[in-house]
C-alpha cells in the first residue's frame, strides 16, 4: 500500500521477494516491511504453496524459514538449488551455527537469525542481491575454495584457514573485504569502491573507516614470512592485493 511512497524510487522497486514463513503474524509484518521498502513481496506458509507460487511467478529472492511444518527449509533449499540459482536467505529461530553452516553448504546465499530487525533484514537482502547480481555472470562455475600463499578461503562455510591449518575468525565485514580483494587480486581498488562494497555490513556504524578494516585484516593475515605485504597501500588511490589467487 506504500508502494508509491518515499522508497518508490529505489532500484529494488520491481524486485519480487518470496517469503516462506509459517507464522501468520510474521508473514504480515515481513510483507509490510518489504513493501514499504520498495519490494514486491509474496508470502506463503509452507512448501506446497511455495512451489505453486514459484510456478506462477519469477522471484528475485527467497526468504526461507528453516522451521517449517512438513518439509523443512534446509530440504527446500536443496531442492530449489537443483534447478534454480535464485538468491536464498535462510531464516532460523535457532541461533545455531550448525544451521548457518548447513544452510550455506546447501547453497543458500546468506543466513539471518531471529529475532532480526527490519534494518538488518533489508541490509542482508540488499547485500545478497548486489552480490548475486554480478556474481553468477562473472563466475558461472560454482566456486568452493580460493587459495593464496597457502591460505584457504572456504566460500561455502565462509571461513579462512591459515597455512598452519588453524581457522582464523573474520568478522562479516572483514570476510567481505577479503573476498573483494581476492576477486580483484593485483588490481588497485579505490577506498570509495571498498566502502561501497562493504556498506551493507557497515551501515549501522558511522565513524568506521575502511582503513581500520584493512588494518585488522592485515593483522589477521600476517605471518612470520611478512604477510604485511599481502595488502599494499597505494598512496592516493586505495589498496591492492598482491598474491596470486587460485580458485577451486
Amino acid at each position, binding site marked *: 500500500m506504500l508502494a508509491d511512497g518515499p522508497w518508490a524510487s529505489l532500484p529494488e522497486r520491481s524486485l519480487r521477494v518470496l517469503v516462506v514463513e509459517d507464522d501468520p503474524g510474521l508473514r504480515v509484518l515481513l510483507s509490510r516491511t518489504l513493501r514499504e521498502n520498495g519490494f514486491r513481496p509474496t508470502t506463503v506458509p509452507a512448501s506446497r504453496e511455495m512451489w505453486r507460487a514459484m510456478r506462477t511467478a519469477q522471484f528475485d529472492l527467497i526468504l526461507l524459514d528453516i522451521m517449517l511444518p512438513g518439509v523443512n527449509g534446509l530440504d527446500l533449499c536443496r531442492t530449489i538449488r537443483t534447478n534454480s540459482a535464485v538468491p536464498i536467505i535462510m531464516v532460523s529461530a535457532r541461533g545455531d551455527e550448525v544451521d548457518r553452516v548447513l544452510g550455506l553448504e546447501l547453497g543458500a546465499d546468506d543466513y539471518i537469525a531471529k529475532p532480526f530487525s527490519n534494518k538488518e533484514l533489508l541490509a542482508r537482502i540488499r547485500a545478497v542481491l548486489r552480490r548475486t547480481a554480478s556474481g553468477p555472470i562473472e563466475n558461472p562455475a560454482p566456486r568452493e575454495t580460493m587459495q593464496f600463499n597457502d591460505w584457504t578461503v572456504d566460500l561455502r562455510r565462509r571461513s579462512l584457514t591459515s597455512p598452519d591449518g588453524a581457522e582464523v*575468525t573474520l568478522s562479516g565485514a572483514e570476510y567481505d573485504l577479503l573476498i573483494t580483494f581476492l576477486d580483484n587480486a593485483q588490481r588497485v581498488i579505490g577506498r570509495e569502491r571498498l566502502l561501497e562494497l562493504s556498506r551493507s555490513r557497515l551501515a549501522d556504524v558511522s565513524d568506521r573507516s575502511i582503513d581500520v578494516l584493512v588494518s585488522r585484516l592485515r593483522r589477521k593475515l600476517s605471518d612470520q614470512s611478512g604477510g604485511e605485504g599481502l595488502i599494499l597501500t597505494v598512496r592516493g588511490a586505495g589498496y591492492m592485493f598482491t598474491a596470486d589467487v587460485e580458485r577451486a
Partner: protein
Amino acid sequence: MHITLWPKGLIGRITAVILIAIVLEFIGSILLHDQVDTYTTREDHARRVAELLVVGERLLKEAPPEDRHIILQSLSTKHLTAQLSDRPSVKPTTDEKLNRLRTQIVAWEPSLDNNTLRLATAAPSERGKGQDLVGAMQMEDGHWLEFRSRDLFGRWPMLYRTVGTAAILAGGVLLAAAMLVHSLGAPLRALAEAADNVGHGETVTVLERGPRDLSQVARAFNAMQTRISRLIADRTQALAAVGHDLRTPLTRMRLRAGFMVDPENREAMEADICEMETMLDSVLAYLKGDSDNEPHRRIDLAALVSTLVDANADLGRDAIYEGPDHLVLETRPLAMKRAISNLIENGLKYGDRVRVGLDRADGEVRIRVEDDGPGIPEEELEHVTSPFFRLDEARGRDTGGLGLGLSIVCNVVEREGGRLRLSNLAKGGLCAEILLPMAERQSTMG
C-alpha cells in the same frame, strides 16, 4: 578400639567375618579332632598290646627257655617292648582310664580275659614327653610277660602336627577367600566409581556383572541414570523449545518497533527486545552446556579474541585487545567465543572500558579480561559463578540479565579442562582470567 579393628570397607568386613569363621571352625575342629584322635590312637594301642600278649604267650609257652629272649627280642618293636619277669613290676590299679584300655584290649582278644592283666602308667623310659603304658600279664607257667608301650598318652606331638597342618590349610583358605571376596567387590567398586563420575558430562554405564544382587544394583543404577538424564533432557528440551519459539514473537515485536513513528518509544522498545534476546541467548547457552557436541578445531585464538573486541569497539565501546597476532589452539571455537564474549560484555556492563589480554605461560593459554568497574566483593568471588547468582542489588546498579554469564563461562572453560580465575585489581575493577591447558606441540604463537 573395636572401631579401629573393624575394617571400614565392605570387602574388609567380609574378609574379617571369614577370618573369624575360620578361626572358630579351626578351634572347634581341634577340640573334636583331639578326641577322635585320642580314641583311635588308644584303639590302635590296645590292639597291638592285645596281639603282643596273645602271640607272646603262645610262642613263649612252646619255646624252650633258652630261646625265650630271642622271641622277646623279635616281638619288641620301637614302640612296644616285651620282657619276661618272675614278679610283676606293675601294681594292680583302679584307674578309670586304664580300666577302659584293659576293656579295649580284651575286646580285641577275648582269650585274654582269663589272664591276670595289670596296667599302669609310667614315666617315659627315654627322653620324650608324655607317659608310657606299662603292663604285665601272668602266663600259665607263672611268669609275667611285661610290656611297655611308649608314649601312649602323649598326644601333643600329634596335636601339634594337626594344628600346624590345619593352620596352613586355614591360611590358604583365608587367602583364597580374601581374593574371591576382593574380586566379588570389583563390581561394587566399579559402581562406586561410576556413581562418582555421574553428572560430569557423559553417561556412565556400569557393567551389569558380578553376583546377582550386585548386578541388580548395577542395573538399577543404570536405569536410574537413564531416567535422570531423560528427565533432565526433557526439561532442557522443553525450555530450549520455548526459547526458540520465543524468537518468532520477538521478531514480530522487532519488526513492529520498526514501524513505530515516535523514535523515543521505538528505541525503548528495541532496547527491551534486545534485553529479552540476550536473556534468551544466555538461557539457551546455559542449557546447551554439556550436551553441546561441538567438535574441537584448530583455531587462531588471537583472531577470535580480537574479532570480539573489535565488534565491541565498533559499537563505540572502549575495548582494547593486547596480545599476539596469532595463537593457535585446539578448542571448541563457538563455546570459547561465547565464554570470551560473556566476559567482555560483563566488563563493559559493570565498567566503562575493557582490556583483553592474551598470552601463554607455563603450558597454559591465558585470556585476561580487565575492566574498570567496581569489582566483586572478595567474599562473593566464589559465588558469582553459580547459576542465577546476581550481584546487582548489592551494587545498586540495574544491569539486567539472568546471572548466567559467568556460569556459562565456567562451564565452557571447565569442559575444556581449564579454569576461570576471578580477582579484583589493585587499582579497582575486576580481572577475569580463562586459563586453558595446552599441549606444547598443538600451539604456535606469532
